[in-house]
């Protein structure tokens, strides 16, 4: 039974690691601040979600898995608020959004 749960957790853990790494690469790769907000959302939604689901499969139905469920619930409320606060402050501070058109003009 526990072996089955362990095998069940593998795809979730791999998918979570994949989205987390892709989000991190995106944060490094994107050209400006506003485009970097999107990969950040990748890490916070599916990266965290899949890893937590994978860990819940390992834990089985217990108090630990209920506690694990609280992590995405907290992230669900805090992530949009933090992202909105950062982007709003950046707009108010006068950070200009990067566009494809502008790059073509300058180059």
């Amino acid at each position: 039974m526990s072996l089955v749960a362990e095998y069940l957790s593998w795809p979730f853990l791999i998918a979570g690691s994949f989205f987390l790494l892709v989000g991190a690469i995106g944060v490094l790769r994107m050209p400006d601040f506003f485009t970097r907000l999107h990969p950040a959302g990748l890490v916070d939604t599916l990266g965290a979600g899949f890893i937590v689901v994978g860990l819940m499969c390992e834990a089985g139905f217990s108090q630990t898995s209920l506690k694990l469920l609280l992590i995405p619930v907290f992230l669900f409320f805090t992530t949009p608020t933090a992202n909105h606060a950062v982007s709003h402050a950046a707009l108010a501070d006068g950070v200009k959004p990067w566009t494809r058109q502008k790059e073509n003009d300058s180059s």
Partner: protein
Amino acid sequence: MYGGRKLAHTFGLFSVLFGVWLILSGFFTPFFLVMGVGCSVFAIFLAMRMEVIDHEAYPFHLTGSLLAYLPWLFWQVVLSNIDVARKILHPRLPISPVLTWVPAGQKSDLVTVIHANSITLTPGTVATAVEHGRIQVHCLTPENLAELEAGVLDRRVTALESGHQ
């Protein structure tokens, strides 16, 4: 009438606080249960002093329609996650971001905030400012913007408000 609704909000907040206590504690001995009730009542006392107990603190009048809305939102989040991941891993980085306003047809502040938060949670679109009747969004590609302007999300959230989900 007003007092009765306030009592209902207070009781809803208490059940949420005590539920979280039970999950985090895991002990069901009388001592821990009494401590949990005490802590929840103290937190409610603090919330009453701050005067933040109202329909926005714990929107349980939306619970039924939220249960239908959240799975749909989750599926949209999964789809757009895959889309954005493909764009990030693409060697040419096929993005051309746009920053514009989209209309938001919701009447109450609470549902407008749910709309903005849904936009932010979906990768590919981020809400940067909220005004009455419109939301400023930053989109990774014009396709993301076109998807928002088609208004599926807007209609879904508006249906949440009127309770016709």
